[in-house]
């Protein structure tokens, strides 16, 4: 131990150097130094080791300090900037525009940062795919940024390697491949629309002319592109204009939640769901999707029956409505299917030019082509659907390319394989045996953000940067480019796909920023570039880069031939693969927010399951949670069963993305790997599935066990024609109602905050729940706690079925604290921890709460959440960076609930009042409202008659939840409207 230089009584004080701190003003002024020689002889030499006096002194001091520190915490430190970054005001959030990739396309986002620390992702109102809304995966991806299990650096054969050393090795490898033109070099990438990546790939192929790029996306929309090629001769991209669509026939397309530009589509669809000029949606599907829940007619059929149904519609259009062009494409159907098809055809015909037929990615290309021809024949093309050149560099990214690569790998024709696609060893169809083949590649370079199935077999693993740490660019489906800009330097050493590719093209020293910027400089010219670039970064889009729609002419004969050759529906029990609404293809399986988010329809958390209909379950003698052995084409996987009301009979939906063997703590060992049954010949719809009961049971953690309203008026829905007659019925659920305590008059207050939730617009996707979780620091509790009903989401989305279990309709109802004016929770709290503000907020005071839970007992809406455990005790330090500093982090034993985003109210209020202005009626936007793509949630000041929320609360559809209790909720609901076809009633 080095000698302590504490000032010992009787010893000279050590010399105070210029860098040393001072303890008193006198010492600082230099007057406290004792004059040398004023001490007795022999005491001047300081002991050169840890002496007895030092020991006694420390002992006494630490005992005294231990006593003191129990009384007073140590003083906090404040750290100032050396140089304050431009645009940063400490304690005020900043917002930066960027873009996230979804299937290779851009979704514009605004990222909230606090002193350089991103805390929340929101939609970018100026970007066409977002329009200010955010989907589940955009919202949740910020959690991945702070995941402590992310990889760091480069690892080669289990040993860390410096990035600079890797660059050298890559250069050597590239030089070796250059000799034969890269004949043994391959790149396995995800489809992307990035112009900068396009440049790098072009450079790669210029340097290695015999190398090849294979694109692979397990959720690729190949069928749509091939279908467009059949119909138009080229693989065009469809863009739907749902604002103009009166009648929509969706053939297995989940266009409101998981396919295409779903945020934009949901916004446009919802805009036509209120009284005036309501649209009508027919949804033909096997599983129960979010879009199916929003449909007026959900046509329950096996996925393999969708094509015959569509042909029956085409036949009916040709036979009864004078569209002979469709005669060769149609094939009449008998029975119920034929009658339904005739009614749908009639409706589509009567709305010609204002109708739309759209097809999901799982359906065969011939059906996509048929829909294109039907849309053209009905005059919908150019009005409700326009076609553009695809923005993706690789419009085709399905099984075909991957199979070709697998053949090359098996033949030993590849020496170096660069993999930037996510986890192909897991996502590849099982029959390709890709995991084993990848293990045999001499040089496998894999870009990954976390350990996964592929990183286990890769020789070289390069840590991938999170999109919020990356420079890059992307295009939206309409071609509009966005610059991806980083919000912070990588938390751990990691690089982007651009950096990795450039290491092989001789530009590894440049870095992604230069590559992107120089690329755009070359595209747009030097003049005024710097200013334009700053503008693009600020706006989040590069103006004027949208691609114009192209005029199309259909080739009906080619489509007819394709339809004739289309695969017949497979016999036997149907296996229908689907991307999971939360985990997608598995890349979000490690995201605990998504794992804990209840599935939009089944309300399942922390799991996937084989979904089948009540009738099929009865036939097979299965109950919820029974584990069955699923066998398909000789492969077997054990999976729990979930009985899904409304599912097509004799069909089983198998959600992908679970059953990960190598993943982070949140994703490993959860659910079953449906992908292990997937076959390259039929990656989406297959037949001949066998189910065998194993006798085992699996606990499924579902957040809503009651699917009916038990005869109470909770989520109300009416047919649009019946609404005028329902006014008296609705009057029972609104208006004056006696309250237990004397009612308070809030009409004189300046602000009376309130909310209106339009059930007609809500699709039930769950984005509001996640946005609330991000905004309000809501903890994750895990599967065990969810099984005990201890989930902490302040905002839940209830889903109720109506009708028979075989074929019900559903209503989704977002429900958070409704801020009762006469709140039952308040008068039972013994410590006044929940009280009312003068503006009507039902406030929760965490510091007063002693955890009696009386409030939750007395809450009629069951929206209060209790911290049974210290859910943050084990949080990694890096994960704490995610917390919103404007919201208190709650401790164990404390009740919490929706605060109407009071931190946002106060931020807007202080901003306005500091300027001497009033807060506008619509100026405060709650987190749930902001994320909602359907604009179903509206927040604002009820005392401002011009505000949107005040007008909505005056709507004829308004009703109050549990009105009869006299709680006077501030959140009002607007009844769900349906627009059924009388002919199908």
């Amino acid at each position, binding site marked *: 131990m080095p000698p302590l230089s504490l000032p010992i009584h009787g010893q000279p004080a050590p010399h105070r150097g*210029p*860098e040393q*701190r*001072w*303890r*008193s*003003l006198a010492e*600082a002024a230099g007057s406290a130094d004792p004059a040398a020689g004023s001490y007795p002889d022999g005491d001047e030499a300081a002991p050169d080791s840890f002496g007895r006096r030092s020991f006694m002194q420390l002992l006494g001091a630490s005992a005294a300090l231990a006593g003191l520190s129990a009384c*007073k915490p140590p*003083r*906090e*430190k*404040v*750290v*100032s*900037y*050396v*140089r*304050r970054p431009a645009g940063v*005001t*400490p*304690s*005020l959030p900043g917002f930066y525009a960027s873009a996230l990739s979804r299937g290779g396309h851009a979704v514009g986002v605004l990222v909230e940062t606090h002193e350089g620390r991103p805390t929340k992702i929101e939609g970018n109102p100026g970007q066409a795919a977002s329009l200010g809304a955010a989907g589940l995966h955009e919202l949740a991806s910020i959690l991945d940024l702070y995941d402590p299990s992310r990889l760091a650096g480069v690892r080669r054969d289990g040993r860390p390697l410096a990035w600079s050393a890797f660059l050298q090795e890559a250069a050597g490898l590239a030089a070796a491949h250059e000799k034969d033109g890269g004949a043994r070099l391959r790149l396995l990438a995800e489809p992307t629309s990035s112009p900068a990546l396009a440049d790098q790939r072009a450079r790669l192929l210029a340097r290695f002319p015999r190398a090849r790029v294979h694109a692979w996306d397990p959720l690729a929309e190949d069928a749509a592109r091939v279908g467009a090629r059949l119909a138009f001769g080229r693989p065009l991209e469809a863009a739907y204009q749902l604002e103009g669509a009166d009648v929509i026939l969706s053939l297995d397309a989940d266009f409101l939640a998981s396919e295409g530009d779903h945020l934009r589509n949901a916004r446009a669809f919802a805009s036509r769901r209120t009284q005036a000029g309501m649209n009508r949606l027919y949804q033909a599907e096997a599983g129960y999707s979010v879009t199916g829940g929003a449909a007026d007619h959900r046509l329950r059929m096996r996925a393999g029956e969708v094509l015959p149904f569509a042909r029956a519609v085409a036949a009916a259009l040709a036979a009864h409505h004078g569209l002979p062009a469709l005669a060769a494409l149609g094939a009449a159907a008998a029975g119920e299917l034929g009658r339904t098809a005739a009614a749908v055809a009639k409706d589509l015909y009567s709305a010609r030019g204002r109708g739309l037929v759209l097809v999901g990615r799982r359906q065969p290309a011939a059906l996509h082509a048929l829909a294109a021809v039907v849309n053209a024949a009905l005059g919908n093309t150019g009005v409700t659907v326009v076609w553009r050149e695809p923005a993706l560099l690789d419009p085709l990214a399905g099984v075909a390319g991957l199979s070709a690569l697998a053949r090359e790998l098996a033949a030993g024709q590849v020496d170096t394989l660069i993999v930037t696609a996510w986890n192909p060893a897991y996502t590849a169809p099982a029959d390709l045996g890709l995991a084993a083949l990848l293990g045999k590649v001499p040089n496998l370079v894999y870009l990954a953000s976390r350990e996964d199935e592929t990183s286990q077999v890769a020789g070289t693993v390069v840590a991938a940067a999170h999109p919020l740490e990356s420079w890059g660019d992307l295009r939206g489906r309409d071609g509009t480019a966005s610059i991806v800009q980083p919000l912070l330097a990588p938390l751990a050493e990691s690089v982007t796909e651009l950096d990795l590719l450039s290491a092989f093209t001789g530009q590894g020293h440049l870095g992604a920023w230069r590559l992107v910027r120089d690329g755009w400089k070359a595209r747009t010219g030097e003049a005024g570039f710097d200013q334009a670039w700053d503008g693009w970064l600020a706006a989040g889009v590069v103006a004027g880069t949208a691609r114009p729609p192209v005029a199309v002419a259909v080739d009906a004969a080619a489509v007819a031939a394709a339809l004739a050759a289309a695969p017949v529906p497979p016999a036997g029990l149907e296996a229908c693969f689907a991307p999971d609404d939360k985990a997608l293809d598995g890349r979000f399986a490690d995201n605990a927010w998504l794992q804990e988010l209840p599935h939009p329809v089944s309300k399942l958390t922390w799991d996937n399951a084989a979904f089948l209909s009540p009738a099929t379950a009865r036939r097979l003698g299965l109950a919820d949670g029974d584990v069955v052995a699923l066998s398909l084409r000789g492969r077997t996987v054990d999976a729990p069963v979930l009985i899904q009301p409304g599912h097509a009979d004799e069909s089983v939906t198998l959600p992908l993305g679970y059953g990960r063997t190598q993943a982070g703590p949140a994703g490993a060992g959860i659910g079953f790997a449906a992908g292990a049954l997937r076959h390259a010949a039929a990656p989406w719809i297959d037949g001949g599935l066998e189910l065998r009961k194993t006798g085992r049971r699996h606990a499924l953690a579902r957040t809503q066990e009651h699917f009916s309203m038990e005869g109470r008026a909770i989520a109300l829905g009416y047919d649009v024609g019946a609404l005028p007659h329902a006014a008296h019925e609705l009057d029972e659920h609104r208006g004056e109602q006696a309250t237990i305590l004397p009612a308070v008059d809030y009409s004189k207050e300046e602000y009376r905050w309130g909310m209106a939730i339009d059930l007609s617009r809500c699709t039930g996707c769950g984005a509001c729940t996640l946005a609330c979780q991000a905004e309000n620091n809501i903890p994750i509790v895990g599967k065990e706690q969810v099984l005990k009903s201890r989930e902490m989401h302040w905002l839940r989305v209830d889903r109720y079925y109506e009708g028979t279990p075989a074929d019900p309709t559903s209503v989704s109802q977002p429900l958070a604290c409704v801020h009762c004016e006469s709140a039952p929770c308040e008068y039972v709290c013994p410590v006044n921890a929940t*009280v009312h*503000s*003068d*503006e009507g*907020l039902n*406030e929760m*005071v*965490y*510091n007063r709460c002693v955890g009696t839970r009386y409030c939750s007992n007395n809450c009629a809406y069951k929206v209060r959440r209790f911290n049974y455990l210290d859910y943050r005790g084990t949080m990694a330090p890096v994960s704490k960076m995610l917390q919103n500093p*404007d*919201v*208190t982090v709650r401790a164990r034993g404390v009740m919490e609930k929706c*605060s109407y985003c*009071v*931190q946002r109210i*106060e931020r807007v209020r*202080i901003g306005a*009042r*500091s*300027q*001497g202005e009033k807060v506008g009626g619509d100026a405060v936007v709650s987190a749930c409202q902001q994320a909602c793509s359907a604009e179903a949630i509206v927040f604002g000041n009820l005392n401002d008659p011009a505000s949107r929320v005040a007008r909505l609360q005056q709507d004829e559809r308004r009703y109050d939840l549990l009105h009869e209790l006299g709680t006077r909720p501030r959140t009002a609901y607007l009844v769900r409207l349906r627009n059924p076809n009388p002919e199908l009633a």
Partner: protein
Amino acid sequence: MSALFTKRSNALLLTTLGVLGLGAAGTIGGLLLYWRTPYGTNQNVQIVQPVQFDHRHHVQDDLIDCRYCHSSVDKAPSAGIPPTELCLSCHSQIWNKSPLLDVVRQSWFANKPIVWTRVHKLPDFVYFNHAIHVNKGVGCAECHGRVDQMAVIEQVQPLTMGFCLDCHRNPQPRLRPLEEVANVRWRPPADRAALGAELARKYDVKPKVNCTTCHR
């Protein structure tokens, strides 16, 4: 058999209960009182900072406005601790060899921030916002005192919830014209009540006393 307890034990029991009760009340009351003393609220403690910064000199002698250094006080929750760059905007020219500024220069050249010790500390669950107070005419000196007379910054007000609420319930005696907000030497006129009433009207001062006004 004689009684197990003598008569005397009644008195003993009552006395014991009384002492225990008084002791419990005294402990609780004492703690409550203790946290309200200047010692409990950390008032009037001179904190040693890494740089011997003297507000007296900067405010009194040089007449530098508070907002020159604490620049976000009128637009953000935090008043802002000046970055090293700001210190050196003057001190690269004057006193640029003073040993008192060694730490500042080291911070600049090493690009390492200066770590100050916080003097005015509110609990983490209090969301105090400087901007709204300053923009409504609450002067810096109302909470921070005569900074121009402090060699070392110390906390002069208790900064307890009661202190906040006193003013939130009756803000008028604490208001001053906006032009004088940062003027620590401002002397209120004789009739401060009238001025306060007028300013409250003029600036639309309506402080709230809801829980969520400060706790979120």
